[in-house]
């Protein structure tokens, strides 16, 4: 051992970090929370970080079931299908010691439904929230809403008194240049309290002594140090070098390296997110028609594309086995998903070429594939591979890979004929997919439908299932709608993403399909 004094000090520092890690979780992922105001941003990492410190009435356990959190029981009111009744947990205190009761729920729900709230879209069906006792609330919806509890999983509860005292009643309105106390301070009921936070650098949380679920959850860690690390190589390097205990987004190519490193392991699971291509099915191509027509408007062309994409090869090579090839743009957890729907065609270039010829394009046609390069796992590489596969049947695809900041506005403005998109379903119900992706685009529906796909019959069904309380009947409708959607091929499915969480040995974690890590579930052995 001929290490210099300096280096041994460096090692000393690192191992000092190791000595305290029995209680401290050093955790990193690519992004950071945008704000601590629970109703200001509807964004995954933001909600995840907040959910260490704040809680909703109902949450989704890592296993996927709804779990009683601040509400202990819930049911549709016997005499009114438009009303849900929630019984609240008693004896819950906020971090500052205030008691949690129905007043806080009414306040928080109203705040989440207010003008500047980004959560209002999730609970748009809520008409009124009223307290019917100190530990009971009723939520009135516009028409029956069978899946309301699932929608509440990301609506965090705030303390009315604390929020009012700190002038944070209105949700932070970034557009208006507002800054609120609640965007940098937290007073929740969650298992961890905020110790310090430097956005994009470091957030430190400590276990909350007065947490109601102290005996219910493992709560292995007394402290969490959360550090966003954007660069994937750096993130993996930090884990490999022992500077971190847990990272959430391991690049697929690094999984084997992590697994092969002593003291580290990787837990994988399917993610609640499907990745697919959208096609412009209208009569006109954005880039200008080919021979006066839009080839993509012909379902045979779409079938040819569907047939030529080798999903297994993408899984094996690009995704290194870390994906589930998809025949439908619906993740496997979602209500409505079946094996049959997920069946996908075996790649067949000859049949694809025949279909193209039949449609009048024996020599293919040029098309631009628009892709994000910083949004989904290996998004650019998937698109690149697709360009290659399309080339084999004569479709001359050009790749336009851009950052998500350029990509999404382009897709939203429908300035694309052929684009990649990923879609997660927080409600775990097909309605969510149909609403945003298949309904004809208008002011409030089909807002992510950039394919110009429009089917009046389907539109009517979409509105119908939203209010259908007869679940078997509703499921039948959904199955029928998927049949239509799958045949029309406005979207060409690629795969369902997998989640890979890497952590040190001894940590027992169930990977959450929504990529929402909640430290309270983490167990150490």
């Amino acid at each position, binding site marked *: 051992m001929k290490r210099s004094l300096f280096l041994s000090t460096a090692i000393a520092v690192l191992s000092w970090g190791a000595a305290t890690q029995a209680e401290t979780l050093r955790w990193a992922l690519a992004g950071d929370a945008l704000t601590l105001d629970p109703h200001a941003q509807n964004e995954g990492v933001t909600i995840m970080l907040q959910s260490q410190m704040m809680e909703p009435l109902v949450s989704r356990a890592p296993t996927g079931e709804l779990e009683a959190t601040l509400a202990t029981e819930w049911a549709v009111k016997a005499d009114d299908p438009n009303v849900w009744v929630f019984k609240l947990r008693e004896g819950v205190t906020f971090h500052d010691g205030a008691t949690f009761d129905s007043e806080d729920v009414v306040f928080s729900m109203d705040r989440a439904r207010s003008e500047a709230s980004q959560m209002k879209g999730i609970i748009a069906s809520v008409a009124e929230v009223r307290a019917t006792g100190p530990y009971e609330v009723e939520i009135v919806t516009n028409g029956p809403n069978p899946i309301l509890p699932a929608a509440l999983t990301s609506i965090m509860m705030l303390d009315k008194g604390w929020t009012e005292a700190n002038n944070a009643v209105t949700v932070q309105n970034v557009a208006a240049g507002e800054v609120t106390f609640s965007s940098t301070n937290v007073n929740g009921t969650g298992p961890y309290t905020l110790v310090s936070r430097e956005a994009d650098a470091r957030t430190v949380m400590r276990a909350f002594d007065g947490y109601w679920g102290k005996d219910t959850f493992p709560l292995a860690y007394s402290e969490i140090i959360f550090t966003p690390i954007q660069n994937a190589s750096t993130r993996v390097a930090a884990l490999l070098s022992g500077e971190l205990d847990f990272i959430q987004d391991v690049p697929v190519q690094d999984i084997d390296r992590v697994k092969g490193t002593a003291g580290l392991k990787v837990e994988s699971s399917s993610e609640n997110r499907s990745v697919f291509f959208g096609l412009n099915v209208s009569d006109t191509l954005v880039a200008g028609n080919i021979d006066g027509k839009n080839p993509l408007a012909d379902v045979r062309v779409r079938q040819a594309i569907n047939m030529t994409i080798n999903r297994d*090869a993408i899984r094996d090579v690009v995704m290194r086995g870390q994906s589930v090839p998809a025949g439908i743009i619906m993740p496997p957890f979602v209500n409505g998903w079946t094996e049959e729907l997920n069946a996908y065609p075996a790649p067949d270039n000859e049949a694809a070429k025949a279909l193209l010829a039949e449609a009048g394009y024996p020599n293919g046609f040029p098309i631009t594939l628009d892709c994000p390069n*910083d949004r989904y796992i290996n998004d650019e*590489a998937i698109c*690149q591979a697709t360009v290659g596969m399309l*080339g084999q049947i004569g479709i001359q695809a*050009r790749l336009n890979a*851009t950052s998500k900041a350029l990509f999404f506005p382009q897709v939203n403005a429908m300035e694309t004929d052929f684009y990649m998109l990923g879609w997660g379903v927080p409600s775990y119900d097909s309605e969510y997919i149909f609403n945003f992706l298949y309904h004809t685009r208008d002011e409030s529906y089909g807002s992510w439908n950039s394919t110009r796909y429009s089917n009046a019959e389907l539109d009517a069904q979409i509105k119908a299932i939203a209010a259908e309380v007869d679940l078997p009947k509703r499921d039948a409708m959904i199955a029928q709608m998927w049949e239509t959607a799958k045949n029309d091929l406005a979207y060409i499915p690629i795969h369902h993403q997998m989640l890979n969480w890497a952590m040190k040995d001894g940590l027992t974690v169930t990977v959450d399909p929504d990529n929402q890590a909640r430290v309270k579930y983490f167990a150490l052995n």
Partner: protein
Amino acid sequence: MIRSFSAFWHSDFGWKFRHSPTAILSALVTLLLVGAAIAAPLIAPFDPFNSASLNLMNGFSAPMTPNAFTGQVFLLGADDQGRDVFSTILYGLRVSLFVGVSAVLFAMVLGVTLGLIAGYVGGRVDGFIMRVADIQLTFPAILVAMLIFGIAKGIIAPQYRDQMAIWVLIIAIGLSDWVPFARVVRGATMVEKNRDYVQAARLIGRKPVAIMVLHILPNVLNPILVIATISLALAIIAEATLSFLGVGAPPTQPSLGTLIRIGQTFLFSGEWWILLFPAATLLALALAVNSLGDWLRDALNPRLK
């Protein structure tokens, strides 16, 4: 051609060249790489730009090892898309050199022109141009290039972006590199402007600019050559850095920088060949061009014998 080569070989400059192992080695490496780039379509076993010929299943083939699925063997392995690394390097060299050389030419034309104007017209025009040069120098090339790239991405329609990306890169890098050329030419022009022949030409009513250009350019040829060589190395590196920031050459038409950006994601996973070979090529190219530039500066500077 042969005669001018022979003239070069036997000149004083040629003698210095023959007696400098560094110069010979770097010239050889540069020639080899440039030659390989030019002849890429002839020597590359695969055409990585032809998507129809790709087989994704060849992805991550190790060098000189048959692929588990397809049995194909690649000299330097295959990348994540199943492209032959050797071929992508050849084609990547082509893109890198094309971008580098074009950017330097662009910078040179711009710099020489502005330098001539500044030196000849003088006064406010000179002040303005040199002020712009100062600002340009303070603004790091990377920021300038990002700025131009950002604007270009917005202006150019998506379906043309992949074709235009290379040209945008050239302009972005070139635009951040014109100042040294302008400074040298401006200085020479200011000296030359007051020479008798220029004054005489002016007296007899001839436009002296053309004559001056003819007289000035030979004088500044040496420093321009040196600046150009060093700028070339800088431009190649700048292109690589821009690629890392995601504003470089598109992955379907990769430069060495793009290849390195892609390759660096496989540093931990054991597919070292995807990073190592392009990086070594870039290093060799930049090193050769840089030391050639170094040597040229010493050799062409008569005072530094």
